[in-house]
């Protein structure tokens, strides 16, 4: 692979960063080489996740937070994920529309990514793009999940501070409990809080959190915002900073890094194991043979899967 690209990347060329991200997106050995080479430069950025339902205002909050961090002289990277259509495989990536404050500012790098085959609201691939921005020297990285409401818990392995965004009509806290969002939030936001019912919703949220976290070292605060007016954004920045301070003081940051690396390592190993299993010609032949018995001899898929899994051990003995 071209060393010039890495050279340009090191000198801060945004197109080089962008092209390296595309290599990561394309996958395969090139992608691994990029991530391996950049790995020593990663780990400096502070990662903040933004998750919540569709239309809760994640992108607008990302824009507001970006402005605030830029005012503080910090550089910002944003990776925003949007859903891929399961029917066509295509996607419309519209999160940039809200990033009105970042235009023309070289201190902000915004990248959109489609969810593609991922079952997660923030895929490992999206996290790898964040890694590139981390190595690119961004101080803060904002990770924006897709907005479906139930799949975002894995953002927990990417972000150090996870911000969960609700709107007053985004319902009832029971929905929140169901979706698992209540478990992953370090900071909660009630956005569009100029709408009716915001105070009652925030109060409900606070009492639920108080009940859940009791005397824990960190009890997630609830921040009311009106993101498009910038209301409450200062308080949100403070809440994120407080969480960061608490993590750093209590060893929690190292623990989160470890969890993230552990998740990533396991994920990569699974991918490789999966690939070498299905890519193995012996397994392919065995699969064809065993599957014939499912179709014609009434073998159950469960027995078939056991036989297939056992084939791997047989194959290992043969080697």
């Amino acid at each position, binding site marked *: 692979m071209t060393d010039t690209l890495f050279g340009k990347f090191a000198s801060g060329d*945004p*197109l080089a960063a*962008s*092209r390296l*991200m*595309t290599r990561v*997106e*394309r*996958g*395969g050995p090139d992608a691994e080489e990029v991530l391996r080479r950049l790995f020593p430069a990663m780990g400096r950025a502070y990662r903040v996740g933004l998750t919540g339902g569709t239309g809760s205002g994640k992108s607008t909050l990302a824009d507001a937070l970006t402005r605030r961090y830029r005012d503080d002289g910090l550089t910002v990277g944003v990776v925003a994920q949007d859903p*891929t*259509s399961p*029917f*066509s*495989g*295509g*996607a*419309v*990536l*519209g999160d*940039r*529309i809200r990033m009105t404050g970042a*235009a*023309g500012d070289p201190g902000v*790098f*915004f*990248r*959109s990514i*489609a969810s593609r085959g991922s079952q997660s609201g923030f895929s490992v691939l999206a996290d790898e793009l964040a890694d590139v921005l981390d190595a690119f020297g961004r101080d803060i990285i904002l990770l924006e999940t897709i907005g479906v409401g139930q799949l975002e818990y894995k953002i927990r392995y990417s972000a150090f501070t996870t911000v969960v965004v609700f709107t007053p009509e985004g319902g009832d806290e029971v929905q929140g409990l169901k979706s698992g969002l209540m478990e992953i939030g370090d900071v909660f936001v009630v956005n569009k809080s100029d709408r009716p019912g915001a105070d009652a919703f925030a109060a409900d949220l606070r009492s639920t959190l108080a009940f859940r976290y009791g005397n824990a070292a960190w009890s997630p605060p609830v921040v009311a915002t009106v993101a498009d007016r910038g209301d409450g954004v200062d308080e949100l920045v403070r809440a994120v900073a407080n969480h960061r301070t608490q993590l750093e003081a209590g060893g929690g940051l190292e623990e989160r890094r470890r969890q993230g690396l552990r998740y990533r390592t396991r994920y990569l190993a699974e991918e490789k194991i999966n690939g070498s299993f299905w890519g193995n010609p012996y397994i392919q032949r065995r699969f064809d043979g065993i599957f014939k018995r499912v179709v014609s001899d009434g073998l159950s898929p469960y027995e078939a899967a056991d036989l297939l899994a056992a084939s791997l051990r047989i194959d290992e003995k043969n080697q």
Partner: protein
Amino acid sequence: MNRPIKILIAKPGLDGHDRGAKVVANALRDAGMEVVYTGLHQTPEMVVEAAVQEDVDLVSVSVLSGAHMTLMPKIRELMNEAGMESVRLIGGGIIPEKDAEELKEKGVVEEVFGPGTDTRDIVSFIEGLFESAG
């Protein structure tokens, strides 16, 4: 593994109508492409900044305001300066035939699609661009 064709649909300039751009964005998505849409009132600088950060394979610019002879060459020029010489540009909107020919001759755009274009023609044109490139 490969990435689907990634396209930036941009609305530079002052006109406030993006129905056409949105129709095209949806058609391209339905054809399996990834479409970054940036919204209205973009400057040429903003369009190119988005193209760089998203590393798109193609930029599609829609202009209805009549400023296409300024905006489109400016975007092409800025893309070239940014190192995106090899990334192609297509145009859409209200563009007189004569202007469209001139933009194509000067190598500003690959093609211009006016009102009433069947979105399937746009899809097959784009697919053709990338098939020939391999």
